[in-house]
């Protein structure tokens, strides 16, 4: 079966006065229909930029797609004419953005904002669109939908606005839903509600989801596959359980180690990955995480490791590392014992 999305060697840079920022470096991956992919990484890891760039949502200039192909249902998105891209956005690929009040237009009603993609892609009449908007708001759990559609974003709470964003994202039943930090601005209880909602919606409408976040916990609860990005590259990728239990990239391992564990508050200081995020203005050489990695070898600093299947791991578990993390950790344990 051909994958729904097949990204090959995507490289994106930003031309800034300070120099060329290498935001996405040679990223390749596929996602199958119905799969939920969680992409994790810190700010500047390229996780959002690569997703926005494949449907033409980064500003060009300063952004520039240097190379790559992005096949969606067999067509290369990077070669589409603008009009074909407009027809695809919102309809085949839905987006849910982070909302600290800013992702919804403050001067348009909720009804208009949700109805826009419906009227644009399906030529619905105003009344037909209104019925669908009410249906969508009920689906995402907004009570009194019929009275609330005439209201404006500032009349909604943060969690409710995020639900509105999700309603916009799924309004045209897209094949692929890309959620970019969709729960980051919300408090923990609201975040849990939204995640429940997404799991529920996935069951109902069967959309393929790319969930971009910096929160490992969110990915653990939602995704089938996790993909860890750093410095514009994929460091590790695989089934969620395999990666969480048996990480093979030192960056993944560091992220997992720095998570707080339930019930042990204050017992030990939280682990912190040493060093600073990479400066992407310098042309990246070698493994981008090498300067912060205690296990890095000489080769890591010179040569970029390819993303390869982990030899003794489960199918689909891939990592980009010259060192053998499992062997290194074993040595460390034996030394301390």
């Amino acid at each position: 079966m051909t994958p729904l999305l097949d990204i090959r060697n995507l490289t994106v840079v930003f031309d800034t006065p300070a120099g060329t920022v290498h935001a996405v470096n040679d990223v390749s991956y596929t996602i199958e229909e119905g799969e939920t992919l969680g992409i994790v990484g810190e700010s500047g890891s390229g996780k959002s930029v690569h997703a926005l760039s494949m449907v033409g949502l980064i500003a060009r200039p300063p952004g520039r797609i240097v190379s790559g192909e992005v096949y969606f249902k067999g067509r290369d998105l990077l070669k589409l004419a603008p009009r074909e891209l407009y027809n695809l956005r919102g309809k085949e690929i839905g987006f849910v953005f982070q909302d600290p009040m800013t992702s919804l237009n403050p001067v348009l009603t909720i009804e208009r904002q949700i109805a826009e993609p419906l009227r644009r892609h399906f030529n619905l009449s105003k009344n037909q669109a209104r019925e669908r908007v009410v249906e969508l708001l009920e689906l995402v759990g907004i009570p009194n939908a019929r009275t609330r559609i005439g209201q404006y974003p500032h009349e909604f709470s943060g969690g409710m606005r995020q639900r509105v964003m999700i309603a916009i994202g799924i309004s045209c039943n897209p094949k692929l839903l890309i959620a970019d930090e969709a729960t980051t601005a919300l408090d923990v209880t609201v975040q849990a509600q939204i995640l429940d909602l997404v799991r529920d919606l996935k069951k109902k409408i069967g959309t393929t989801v790319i969930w971009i976040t910096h929160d490992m916990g969110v990915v653990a609860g939602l995704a089938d596959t996790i993909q860890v990005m750093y410095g514009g590259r994929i460091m590790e990728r695989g089934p969620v359980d395999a990666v969480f239990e048996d990480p093979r990239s030192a960056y993944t391992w560091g992220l997992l180690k720095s998570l707080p564990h339930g019930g042990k508050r204050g017992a030990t200081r939280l682990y912190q990955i040493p060093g600073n995020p990479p400066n992407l203005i310098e042309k990246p050489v070698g493994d981008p995480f090498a300067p912060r990695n205690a296990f890095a070898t000489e080769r890591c600093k010179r040569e970029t490791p390819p993303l390869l299947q982990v030899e003794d791991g489960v199918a689909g578990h891939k990592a980009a590392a010259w060192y053998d993390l499992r062997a290194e950790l074993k040595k460390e344990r034996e030394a301390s014992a």
Partner: protein
Amino acid sequence: MTRYLLVKLLEAVVAIWGVVTIVFFVSRILGDPTVLLLPVGAGPEEIANLRTALGLDEPLWQQYLYSLLAMVKGDFGISFQHVRPALDVVLERMPATASLAGLALIFGTLIGAIAGAIAALMRGTVAELVVMIAALLGQATPTFWLGIMLILLFSVELGLLPTGGAGGWENYILPGLTLSVFVSASIARLLRSSLLDIMREDYVRTARAKGLMPRTVFFWHIARNALIPVVTMIGIIAGELLGGSVVIETVFAWPGVGRVIVQAIQAQDFPVIQAGVALVAGIFVVVNLLVDLLYGVLDPRIRRG
């Protein structure tokens, strides 16, 4: 809504009262108008008689209270110069000022809006540079100088247009153009920066992610929001222009409100000064109120219950 309007109305009354009061006392400092009104060589007795006739010999506070009471009733007194009701003297100049202001506002706003939109949409091109330099020059050039230069070129050198005065449509061209340059330059600069700010907003990215056509994104999501500060600017300019551009009306000998007030100040015609200033203040307040109401239409966040 009614409460909001009542508050605004009260503010307006206080503002106009303040302006009238300041003008009353400041104009009295200017000197004694009777000397100017009588022929050269008039004796002290004649001066004293005229002062009594005009009510200028009474204590200042009494004059102030009398004229304030009369103004509430709409009576601004009789013009010393024209010997007619002062308000009539000012009001009959209103059509000339209003038509010139309207013309400059419509043309200036249209040209400014188009130029500003071009500059924002063609960011980083020669077109943007040209618009921005033109707008900067337009805003920085003193209007009286521009007016005089236009008269020199089109009236004196080429003999195409009248140097001043009102009458036919050709009299509108030069003063209208001079005012439009300033209006369009201000609006072009503000609209450009406002558009560029809004284009970076997250909700514009949301709109594009919905697959909307670029013109829908531009008109409904970018321009709609970018216009809010521009509306305020247009309101302020409208208030200024309707009060009569003193400089332009003087340069082009335009028979408008601004010019009649200047003439009244020179002649120390107190009733006309007071009527003129009260009218200008009133117009300013009304235009501002309209802008406030329009603001509520454009931005639901400040709509009041």
